[in-house]
């Protein structure tokens, strides 16, 4: 167990690699109850959330979800989040544990200005069931859940308790995230674990899975000093939002979209077996410093070291060779397309 933002998190059960493969080959169950589950309710809730993020939320149908970011006036990222459209204009927002308190305060004051109420689901647990066997395993416990498509969510019942299920995750696999009252969570988890295709995986495996899937970890790959454009997240900025703006940092982001950026987030495949780690320097072949690693480790499914980092745009093309300084030793690395694995989302 490790302490993370005040939560005792299971980092490892049996071993990161076997827990990683559990999600790639069968179904892995993660406890991600540390994530913040927030609701913004009121007739102007869509307006309120769109004043905070560059994502197109008004264009979401009920029960559909979208990945977006809380941006600041410079276009920097305060947090990344998933917004789900509920009934009417109400939305549900899942945020990072470490940012939860700040997000609630910030979004709460904005919600209030729009005459909306923000509430936090403190009593709800959040489980993630990820992997090719997730659909069958979950459908056996909650019939109907298999009808959801990727980035779609709906309300279900389980033994009289309300469960909110979304087809989403942080692993690059097909899978689900299940929000339910904390007091029911243990029994629900045990029922899933009774299926031989399901086993527990910890936050260590979650990290290697998301790195292979090319997904950003807040506070590492993205933060207030990086913009969605630099981070390669422009796909998450709605067309209407690009044209009309109306979110913090819109001018800066639109200017970057038009004129390009000086650095970009890239994937990296170091040669050999030694993993690159966060904070290590990236150099061009001529020795010029061109960036820094923001996440790095070993990719169990890739079968070798993988990393992400920011490099000068002129060096960011896939296939380009750069140098990493691994513990004082220059090591060649190839700029690689993200994700490192082929996602198995059910679209």
């Amino acid at each position, binding site marked *: 167990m490790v302490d993370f933002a005040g939560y005792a998190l299971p980092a490892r059960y049996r071993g990161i690699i076997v827990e990683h493969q559990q999600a790639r080959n069968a179904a892995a169950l993660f406890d991600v109850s540390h994530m913040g589950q927030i609701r913004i309710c009121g007739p102007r809730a869509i307006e309120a959330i769109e004043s905070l993020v560059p994502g197109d939320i008004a264009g979401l149908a009920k029960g559909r979800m979208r990945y977006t970011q809380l941006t600041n006036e410079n276009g920097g990222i305060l947090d990344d989040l998933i917004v789900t459209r509920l009934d009417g204009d109400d939305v549900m927002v899942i945020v990072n544990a470490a940012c939860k308190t700040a997000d609630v305060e910030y979004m709460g004051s904005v919600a209030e200005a729009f005459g909306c109420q923000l509430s936090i689901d403190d009593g709800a647990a959040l489980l993630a069931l990820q992997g090719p066997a997730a659909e069958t395993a979950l459908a056996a416990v909650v019939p109907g859940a298999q009808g959801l498509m990727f980035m779609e969510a709906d309300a279900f019942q389980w033994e009289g308790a309300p469960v909110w299920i979304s087809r989403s995750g942080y692993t690059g696999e097909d899978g689900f995230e299940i929000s339910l009252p904390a007091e029911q969570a243990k029994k629900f988890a045990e029922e899933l674990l009774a299926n031989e295709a399901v086993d527990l995986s910890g936050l260590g495996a979650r990290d290697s899975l998301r790195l292979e899937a090319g997904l950003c970890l807040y506070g590492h790959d993205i933060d207030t000093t990086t913009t969605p454009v630099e981070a390669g997240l422009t796909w998450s900025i709605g067309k209407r939002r690009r044209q009309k703006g109306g979110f913090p940092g819109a001018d800066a982001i639109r200017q970057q979209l038009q004129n390009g950026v000086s650095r970009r987030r890239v994937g990296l495949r170091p040669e050999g077996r030694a993993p690159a*780690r966060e904070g290590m320097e990236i150099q061009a072949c001529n020795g010029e410093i061109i960036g820094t690693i923001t996440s790095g480790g070993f990719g169990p499914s890739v079968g070798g070291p993988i990393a992400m980092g920011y490099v000068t745009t002129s060096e960011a093309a896939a296939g380009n060779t750069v140098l990493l300084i691994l513990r004082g030793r220059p090591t060649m690395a190839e700029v690689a397309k993200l994700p490192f694995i082929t996602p198995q989302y059910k679209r």
Partner: protein
Amino acid sequence: MPRTYFSEDHEWIDVEGDIGMIGITDHAQDQLGDIVFLELPEVGTSFAKGDELAVVESVKAASEVYAPVSGEVVEINELLKDNPDAVNKDAEGDGWFVKLALGNVTELGDLMDADAYKALVDSQN
């Protein structure tokens, strides 16, 4: 019969004559988790007691291994180049790191025997 000593940094050393075979303990490999890469020194390199002898990379992090005694590397475990997980499977056997020609056998007196090491690990749990 070789005699085995243990360090506070969770290394073991099997001493036979003036050669010491060094590795990390089973407890250490369990704490580190899946080991994916080892940086071992070259044969012929000399180390003072406490010098960085090797680097162990697990999925999560890199950890240094310090020389429990001084000496010169006479052999490294070639098996670990392609099979770093041998350390996870058999830390105190097939997963040995290096053999050192001991520089100063009196340094062994600063190390622990198996019982003292077990007591140390128990006290840390």
